[in-house]
């Protein structure tokens, strides 16, 4: 497939990637199908030989774990100290973030990474607090900072980051290596991954082929992209009138890009290099639509789908750099029993819903109140081992 050729030769990244994904899960995995300039965006250099990314050798190296728990997908990466991704996992959250995190850790462990020395762990995404408590994170960061950090690592001179995930989309403006502006979608999730998934399912096209289908079209139809509900009825109308599916699909991609540029990116100065990341970045139709609308080349970095996790891993490296200690609980978290309970606080009419996270029956963390009455700060975890030892 295209993806094999997409990686720069000799990076060895594929060894980690392919080996990691059991066949039962392979359909969860979305990969970039086409890349603009692989050599220019991938940090790996030729000296790194593929054996570096085999678990056996990695036992000697310090690795950093990044976990990004989003509304739709949960991603984990293991990165070494030089910024090379040695393993990555892309799973669907399916509304059960704890199970998804544990499954991800289990997949990493199943590949022999459980012997590796994890010197730091970071979490991000909307489930970052939960993930932080479960894996024992050294840093818990918002997804905007994590995505910016990862983009800067992959493309050091990046000036614009377009990120479209499962249920949110953001734009990050970077100048001279510093984030100077950002925006996230507000109330509307039109144009995010969930909507594309749904439309692909409705048209009976596998989401992986959605983008390629869009590229086949020569005359896209115009679809109202301002609102997901209107876009859908517009699509149905166009389809009933008889337009070919590929024209509708490409029209949809263009509509979503238009919506993104008018909404999220409104008033922002989009300068190249432009990096497009997040789950939707795998959709070549969206990439092409962005390039046409912006008139500049749009780069989709390798690991575009797991950039948040990469950012979390980089931040974990920064956070543990000074102390050399990590709170990471180790790969056994995959087999520990976590329970959650919730109750409604009756102390005031706010009626906050309090969530308790328990590990093997013991209270690990509790949050959810506005006033902070029930919050327990996750206790300082016993340091598992010296990162240097």
């Amino acid at each position, binding site marked *: 497939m295209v993806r094999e050729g997409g990686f720069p030769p000799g990076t060895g990244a594929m060894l980690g990637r392919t080996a990691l994904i059991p066949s039962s899960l392979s359909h969860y995995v979305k990969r970039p199908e086409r890349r603009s300039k692989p050599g220019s965006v991938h940090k790996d250099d030729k000296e790194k030989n593929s054996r570096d990314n085999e678990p056996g050798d990695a036992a000697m190296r310090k690795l950093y774990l990044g976990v990004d728990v989003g509304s739709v997908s949960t991603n984990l990466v293991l990165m070494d100290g030089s910024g090379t991704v040695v393993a990555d996992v892309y799973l669907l959250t399916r509304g059960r973030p704890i199970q998804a995190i544990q499954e991800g850790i289990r997949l990493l462990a199943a590949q022999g990474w459980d012997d590796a020395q994890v010197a730091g762990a970071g979490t991000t995404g*909307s489930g970052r607090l939960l993930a932080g408590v479960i894996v024992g994170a050294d840093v818990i*960061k*918002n*997804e*905007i*900072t994590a995505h910016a950090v990862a983009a800067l690592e992959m493309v050091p001179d990046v000036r614009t980051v377009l990120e479209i995930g499962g249920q949110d989309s953001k734009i990050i403006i970077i100048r*001279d*290596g*510093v*984030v*100077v*502006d*950002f*925006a*996230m979608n*507000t*109330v509307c999730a039109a144009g995010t991954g969930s909507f594309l998934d749904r439309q692909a399912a409705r048209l009976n096209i596998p989401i992986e082929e959605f983008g390629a289908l869009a590229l086949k079209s020569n005359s896209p139809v115009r679809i109202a992209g301002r609102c997901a509900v209107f876009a859908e009825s517009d699509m149905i109308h166009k389809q009933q009138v008889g337009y070919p599916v590929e024209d509708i699909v490409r029209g949809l991609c263009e509509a979503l890009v238009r919506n993104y540029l008018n909404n999220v990116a409104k*008033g922002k100065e989009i300068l190249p290099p432009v990096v497009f990341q997040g789950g939707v970045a795998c959709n070549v139709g969206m990439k092409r639509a962005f390039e046409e609308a912006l008139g500049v080349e749009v780069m989709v970095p390798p690991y575009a789908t797991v950039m948040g996790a990469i950012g979390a891993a980089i931040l974990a490296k920064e956070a543990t750099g000074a102390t050399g200690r990590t709170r990471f609980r180790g790969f056994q978290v995959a087999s520990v029993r976590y329970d959650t309970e919730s109750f409604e606080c009756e102390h*005031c*009419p*706010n*009626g906050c819903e309090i969530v308790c996270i328990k590990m093997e029956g013991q209270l690990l963390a509790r949050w959810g109140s*506005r006033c902070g009455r029930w919050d327990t700060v996750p206790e300082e975890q016993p340091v598992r081992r010296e990162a240097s030892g």
Partner: protein
Amino acid sequence: MRIGIPRGLLYYEYFPLWKCFFEELSAEVIVSGPTTKRILDRGVQTAVDEACLPVKVFYGHAAELGDCVDFLFVPRVVSVEPRAYTCPKFLGLPDMLRASMVLPRLLSPTVNMRRNRRQLLAAVRQVAAELGAGPVKTWRAWRRAVAAYRRFKEFLRQGYGFEDAVSLALGQNRHLARQAPPARDLTVAVLGHPYLVYDQLVGMNLIQRLRSEGVRVLTADSFTPAEIEAKVRNLPKALFWTYEKQVLGAALACLDRNVDGIIQYVSFGCGPDSMIGELIQRWVRRKRDIPFTLLTVDEHTGQAGILTRVEAFLDMVARKKARSA
């Protein structure tokens, strides 16, 4: 005689004035409690659909006070200075309330100073007469109320929180200590209507959160009226919404102070703010490149989304400042 004041909208602008005035007239002032989810839910149920969040919150507070008061004080504030208006929703507030719920007797003077500042005194006399107070008592009460209001604004300007400024202005809790000096050399302005940023529920404790992060926080109340007036005078066209003018003027004044970032806090569906936000962004970009972000809340807004944006904004401001230092 018990006068109920709903804790919403202009409460956050004039409460010490009203409280002092009514108490000087020997009335008892009852304020609804801080906004809770229950109050918000009540407001959402009773208010018209199209109303903005703060109006819905106001409905909830009015319903909360219900029949435990003799009068409900809901002034019709049309204009508080010559040639300018307030938000159109303030103009119709007493009617909107009356149309959708059973209320105690409304104490609803019309304040319209668009042509003439002295109209305010007519409104004051009208209220006092309704409460049965004579002219001398009224005059004395009004002078004291205005003094309390000035103190209140001064305490806000010095950086006291809203609750502290209220109690200081009214002569309670005089022992309150000044805010501890911020731990970080970072100043962020939180600009928005007082009824959004000072409200316990709607404001998401944004100001306190930033302070606990060690950030020095400015609000629109941190600037003197003269400072704000001087800034908006330079605009190509006079702005005729008083409260929006304060927000925009404060944003422009931030450009002269050492402010590292500006957060504008608006409610979804606010007509005037949709324009002001645009103006602020343009002027901020044109004059100096200060990071700016717009946070929009409505009744469906979860804390998580707001906190993510605030956290990312602080990261950005701090990293940018560290880089340029």
